[in-house]
C-alpha cells in the first residue's frame, strides 16, 4: 500500500517550507524532520517496488495527461534509484541528527532535505524541463552545503562547483531549447517518440549539450574538476551523500538521455571510453593524495567511471551490472565517508599520515573503514565483487578486452591506496594516547546499517539483482516505457 508518489517530492518541500516555523517551536524538531520525511520516501519507494517492477507507475500532476502536463514516471529504474537515494538519504539523515553542530543547523537540515528531494525528483520525473528544475534544486542545495562549514576551503570548493555546475546547466537549458524547438514537447517519452523524425544533425547537438550538462553531475572526466574539492570540503555527511545521491541522480539523467530519449549507437561507445578515462585518471590521482577525504573523492569518481563503462555497454546485463555498482557505490561510499569523517575528526588532521594507529584507538570506526575499503575493492563475499565481476564480464563479452584490463588495472591501483590507509590505521604504532572521545550512537547506527546492507547484498546478490533486472530492461528496451507514458490515463 503506497501513497501518491508525488508526495515523495511534495512533502519534503512542504516540510522544508515549514521548518522555519517549526524551528521557532523547538530547536530539536528540525533535526528530525529530514529523518521522518526521507523515511517516508524510503517507505514509499519500497512499497512501490512490486508495482513498478511490473509496469511503470504514471503519476499525473495537475490533472493533465502527458504530454500536456508534467508527470512522474516511476519505472523500475526510477524506483530503484529512488530507493537507493532514500536509503542513503535516510542513513545520512540519522547520522546528521547528532553530527551537525555548526549553526544554523535548521538551515542545514532544510538544505539537506531539499537536496534529497531534488534528487528524488530527478529520478522520478518524466518531463525534461522538470528534470532541469530538479537538477537545479539538487545542485543549488549542494553548492550551499559544500560551503556550509564557512571556512576558506569550503567556499573555494563551492565556488568551483557552482561555476562548473551553472555553466553546464545553461548547456542543459540550451539542449532543452533545441529539443523543444524541434519536437514541440517536453515529455521525455513524447520526445523519444517524436525525435525520430527530426534531423539527426540537430538532435545529436542537443544530446551533446545535455550530456555535457549532466556529465558534470555524473562526474565524467573532464567535467569532474569540482568533485574532489566539493567532496573533501563539504561537511562529512554531505560528502557521503554526494556519492549516493547527487551523482546517482546525474547518472540516471545521463542514462535516461542516451537510452530512452535519443538513439545514437556511437554515443554508447563514447560513454564507454569516457568511463575508462574517468576511472583511470581518478584512480591515478587518488593514489597520490595526502588527504583522506580527497582520496575518497577521487575513488568515488573512479567508481563512477566503472558505472559509465557499464552504461556504455548497452546490454541488459551490462546495465544491470552498472546499476548494481551504483547501488554498491551508494552504500559503501557513505560508509567510508562517515567513518573517515570521524577518523579525521579524532586524529585532528585531514592528512592520511596522521591516522597512524587509529585502529587501536578507534577499533569500531577503523573496522567500518576497512570493511568499506574491502567492499569497494571488490573482494568477495562483499557486494562490490559481484558488480565489478558482472561489469568486467560484460565488457569482455562485448569484445572490449583492453577496456576490461584497464579497468582492472584501475582496481589494482585502488587496492594499493586503500590498503595504504588501512595499513596506517592498523599497522602503525599510535603516536600518543589521547583520551578516547565518544562516537555518537546515531553514527554507529548509520554505519552499521550500511555495512549490513553491503554484506547482505554480497551474500545474496540475486535478491538485489532481481530488482535491477527490470530496471535494466526498461532502460535498454525503451518501448514499454514510452508506451506506458503515452497511454497513461486513456
Amino acid at each position, binding site marked *: 500500500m503506497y501513497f*501518491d508518489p*508525488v*508526495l515523495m517530492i*511534495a512533502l519534503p*518541500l*512542504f516540510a*522544508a*517550507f*515549514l*521548518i*522555519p*516555523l517549526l524551528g*521557532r517551536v523547538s530547536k530539536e524538531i528540525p533535526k528530525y524532520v529530514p529523518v521522518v520525511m526521507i523515511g517516508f520516501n524510503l517507505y514509499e519507494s519500497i512499497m512501490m517496488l512490486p508495482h513498478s517492477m511490473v509496469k511503470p507507475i504514471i*503519476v*499525473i*500532476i*495537475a*490533472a*493533465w495527461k502527458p*504530454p*500536456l*502536463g*508534467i508527470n512522474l514516471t516511476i519505472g523500475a529504474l526510477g524506483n530503484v534509484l529512488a530507493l537507493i537515494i532514500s536509503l542513503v538519504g535516510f542513513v545520512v539523515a540519522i547520522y546528521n541528527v547528532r553530527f551537525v553542530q555548526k*549553526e*544554523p543547523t535548521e*538551515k*542545514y537540515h*532544510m*538544505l539537506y532535505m*531539499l537536496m534529497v528531494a*531534488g534528487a528524488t*525528483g530527478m529520478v522520478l520525473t518524466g*518531463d525534461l*524541463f*522538470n528534470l532541469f*528544475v*530538479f537538477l*537545479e*534544486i539538487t545542485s*543549488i*542545495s549542494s*553548492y*550551499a552545503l559544500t*560551503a*556550509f562549514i*564557512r571556512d576558506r576551503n569550503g*567556499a573555494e570548493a563551492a565556488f568551483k562547483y557552482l561555476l562548473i555546475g551553472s555553466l553546464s546547466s545553461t548547456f542543459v537549458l540550451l539542449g532543452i531549447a*533545441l529539443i*523543444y*524547438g*524541434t*519536437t*514541440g*514537447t*517536453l*515529455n521525455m517519452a513524447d520526445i523519444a517518440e517524436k525525435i525520430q523524425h527530426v*534531423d539527426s*544533425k*540537430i538532435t545529436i*547537438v542537443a544530446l551533446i549539450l545535455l550530456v555535457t550538462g549532466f556529465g558534470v553531475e555524473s562526474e565524467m572526466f573532464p567535467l569532474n574538476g569540482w568533485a574532489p574539492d566539493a567532496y573533501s570540503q563539504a561537511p562529512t555527511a554531505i560528502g557521503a551523500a554526494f556519492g549516493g545521491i547527487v551523482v546517482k541522480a546525474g547518472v540516471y539523467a545521463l542514462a535516461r538521455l542516451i537510452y530512452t530519449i535519443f538513439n545514437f549507437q556511437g554515443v554508447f561507445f563514447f560513454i564507454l571510453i569516457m568511463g575508462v578515462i574517468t576511472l583511470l585518471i581518478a584512480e591515478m590521482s587518488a593514489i597520490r593524495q595526502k588527504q583522506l577525504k580527497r582520496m575518497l573523492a577521487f575513488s568515488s569518481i573512479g567508481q563512477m567511471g566503472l558505472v559509465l563503462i557499464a552504461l556504455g555497454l548497452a546490454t541488459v546485463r551490462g546495465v544491470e551490472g552498472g546499476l548494481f555498482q551504483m547501488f554498491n557505490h551508494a552504500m559503501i561510499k557513505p560508509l567510508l565517508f562517515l567513518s573517515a569523517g570521524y577518523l579525521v575528526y579524532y586524529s585532528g588532521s585531514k592528512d592520511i599520515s596522521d591516522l597512524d594507529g587509529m585502529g587501536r584507538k578507534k577499533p569500531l570506526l577503523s573496522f567500518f573503514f576497512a570493511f568499506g575499503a574491502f567492499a569497494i575493492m571488490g573482494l568477495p563475499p562483499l557486494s562490490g565483487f559481484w558488480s565489478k565481476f558482472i561489469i568486467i564480464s560484460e565488457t569482455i563479452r562485448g569484445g572490449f578486452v583492453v577496456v576490461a584490463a584497464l579497468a582492472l588495472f584501475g582496481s589494482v591501483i585502488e587496492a594499493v591506496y586503500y590498503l595504504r590507509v588501512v595499513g596506517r590505521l592498523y599497522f602503525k604504532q599510535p603516536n600518543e594516547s589521547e583520551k578516547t572521545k565518544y562516537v555518537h550512537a546515531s553514527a554507529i547506527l548509520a554505519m552499521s546499517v550500511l555495512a549490513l546492507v553491503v554484506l547482505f547484498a554480497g551474500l545474496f546478490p540475486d535478491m538485489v539483482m532481481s530488482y535491477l533486472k527490470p530496471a535494466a530492461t526498461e532502460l535498454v528496451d525503451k518501448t514499454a516505457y514510452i508506451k506506458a507514458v503515452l497511454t497513461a490515463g486513456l
Partner: protein
Amino acid sequence: MRKAIAVIFLGIIGYYLLATFFNIPFGIARVLDGVGFKYLAMGVPDTGAANVVTSIVVNFRGFDTLGEVTVLFLAATGMGALLHHREPMKRSRQNASIIVKAGARILFPLIIILGAYVFVHGHLTPGGGFQGGAIIASGFLLMFMSYRSYHVNHVVISRVESLAGSTFVIIGLFGLVYGHSFLANVLPLGTVNTLFSAGVIPLIYIAVGFKVGSELTGLLDTMLKTVK
C-alpha cells in the same frame, strides 16, 4: 595562452551551435502538433486564465513552479547559512538625504500595492507572483537604502515565507485529495477575464507572490547586513 585557447574553443562552439540553430527557422510555426498550440487552444476553456503563460506556469506546469519557488527558497536559505554570524548583524549605511527619505515614504506603499496588483492579476495580465514579488522586494530595498534604522522583522519575514510556501503545497494537496492529482484545479473556473476566475491559479500566484516577495526581501536584508 588561456585567452587564445578560450577564444578558439568558444569559436568552435559558437560556429557549430549557430549552424545548428540556423537549421531551425526563426519566426515560423515549425511543430504543429507541439504542446504549445494545445495549451493555447485549451488554456482559456480548461483553466479559465486569460493569460496562457500564467496558466502554463501555474497549472499545466505548476510542478515546475513549485520547484522554482523551492530554488529561490534554497538560494535564500543557502545565503542565510553562508552569511550566518554568531554576532548580531547590522546594516551599515549612512542615512540618505531627506528628499530621498520623504520620497521613499510616499513611494513605498505605492510600490507594495503595485506588486500586489501584479501578482493578483497574474492570470489576466502579464505578470504574476514572481514579478510582483520582485516589485515588493524593491519597495523594501528602497526603504533599506533610505532609512538606516528601517528594520524588517526577520521572524515575520520567515513566517510569511513559510506560510506562503506551505500554502502552495497545501493547495496542491487539496488537488490531490479532491481532484485525484497533485495541483489539480479543483475550484470553479469562473468567468474568463474577471478577477475571481481560473480556480486555484490566482491563489497559487498570490502565495508565490508573498513567498517571492518575502524571500527576496530577506535575501537583500541578509546581504546588506554585516558584522559591526
